[in-house]
């Protein structure tokens, strides 16, 4: 079943057509990747898919539901979560709170219960804390639960962003350069984590990444953007041998071995 579908979406910034006629159909538990040169429009695609930008043309469906005119929080409610290329954690809060914050909209007690601590307040709070801790453990962050988010090293901040996204219990998770700023060893960790998220938690995943080795290893299907256009798409084998992709993006890294 299609969990995320983009139907010929485009966006214009003033005179700049940042993304043109982009389509995507992501089924449950699938793992797609978007690659392309810097400034190709990848992040912009994410921004449209998560409701931060409204596409000037085309439509987006989450779980079959048309999302036209919806706000980002409604996208999340419909089952979509993301991380950011420029990390956007809640820096004034601890690691644990960051994760709990992402549970806010799925809490089963009302305003009055909250003010008076009646109803399901206590049980819900316990549930949220436990679930958050579970997720942190999965990413090996449990020991840092009381750190302020912005005091974590860069790599762990990226991990925390993933945890936080998962806490919204999405069907699809969009990762914008999850391995940026990591060394190859750490990237291997991230790869394993992403695969676990896909396999164990059963999420569909869409990744933007410049580390080709990683992309080729995990992606089932790749879309390549350049100047907002989809210049190539298909399986990793197909894409990395596509001369257009090599010319625009990979350079000497076709059949990427290193980066």
């Amino acid at each position, binding site marked *: 079943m299609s969990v995320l579908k983009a139907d010929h979406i485009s966006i214009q910034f003033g005179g700049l057509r940042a993304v043109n006629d982009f389509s995507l159909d992501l089924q449950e538990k699938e793992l797609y990747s978007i690659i392309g040169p810097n400034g190709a429009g990848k992040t912009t695609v994410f921004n449209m898919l*998560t*409701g*931060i930008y409204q596409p000037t043309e085309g439509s987006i469906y989450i779980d079959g539901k048309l999302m036209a005119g919806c*706000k*980002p*929080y409604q*996208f*999340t*409610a419909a089952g979509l*979560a*993301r991380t*950011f290329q420029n990390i*956007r*954690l*809640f*820096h*004034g*809060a*601890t690691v644990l*709170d960051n994760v*709990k*914050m*992402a*549970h*806010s*909209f*799925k*809490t089963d*007690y009302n*305003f009055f219960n*909250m*003010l*008076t*601590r*009646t109803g399901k*307040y*206590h049980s*819900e*709070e316990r549930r*949220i804390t436990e679930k958050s801790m579970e997720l942190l453990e999965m990413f090996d962050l449990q020991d840092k639960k*009381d*750190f*302020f988010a*912005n*005091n974590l090293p860069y790599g762990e901040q990226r991990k925390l962003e993933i945890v*936080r*996204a998962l*806490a*919204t219990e999405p069907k699809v998770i969009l990762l914008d350069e999850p391995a940026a700023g990591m060394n190859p060893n750490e990237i291997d960790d991230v790869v394993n984590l992403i695969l676990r998220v896909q396999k164990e938690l059963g999420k569909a995943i869409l990744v933007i990444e410049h580390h080709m080795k990683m992309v080729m290893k995990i992606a089932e299907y790749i879309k390549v953007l350049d100047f907002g256009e989809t210049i190539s798409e298909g399986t990793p084998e197909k894409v990395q041998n596509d001369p257009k992709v090599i010319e625009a993006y990979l350079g000497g890294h076709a059949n990427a071995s290193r980066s």
Partner: protein
Amino acid sequence: MNWLRKNSEVIILPLIYVVIFLLQKNKILNNYIIQIIMLAGVNIIMTLSLNLVNGMTGQNSIGHAGFMAVGAYVSALFSKIIFSAATMPPALQTVFFLLATIAGGIGAAIFGFLIGMPTLRLKGDYLAIVTLGFGEVIRSIIRITPTVGAARGLTGIPKLASLFWIFVFVTITIYVCRNYMDSAYGRGCLAIRDNEVAADTMGINTSKYKVQAFVTSAFIAGIAGSMYAHTLRYLHPDVFSYTKSTDFLVYLYAGGVGSISGSILGAFVLTALPEILRFMNEWRLVIYGGLLVVIILFRPVGMFGGKEFAFLKLKTGGIRHIGFSNLFQRKSKKTAVANEEISQ
């Protein structure tokens, strides 16, 4: 009972009341000190109210005295003009005082909603100016409304507030604010404060959370207004000027924005300080201004920034708990490894 067990921490505030009450009965605390404590109580409620908006949600309100004015005038209208509570038997007076206070709170909350809604898309200083403007508009309406005394001011409001009632409302406010902070609603607000875009993408309906916080805050400010009106018995539109709003901002930030304990402490200390400085005569406010600078230079996050009294049992926000055991120790055990700062 079950509820009391889970909320045992609220006992400490009534305890403080009992102590003050006994000291007052035994003439150790005179009416002057009680008066300052009462005013400090009103200021604590106001500062906590401001903390919900400025501290927790990261919105910039600099016109909060406007909500206080609405609460004060509506409650005074209720208890003095509509029902003249002064002539009632004491038991009934209390009932009408509470009703008046709630009316004041609701009145302020309505205004909170009215300005919260349209200003959602405003940020930072732009929002600040609108809240300031709103406060001034309120004053200018009161000023030409003869029913509430217009520019003459409203006199003869029945003296219904007392140390006891102020304590009750301070306690409720602290309790409510603590609960707010330690809940999905409060965390949603904190998320908005820290990063609105990310909050939105984490499924938080930012508009709803902001308006909720604004309205709750206005309601609380209205309650404070009622306490003020029924303590001072005299209202004048100029009392609720922009300068008054600034006072609360100072209490909030010097106390430690975002921290409930900080709001309490800031309001208390800075209400008392000018009184303590009375012996300085005309140098009083010079020293007060200077001390304010010194406080903020030595503790830029405010006296209690990033810390909370342990009895509040606050969990959210990565705070350091200050209990009675470690209050006097220089190095307290950290529950959070962190710099104590709340960066904005």
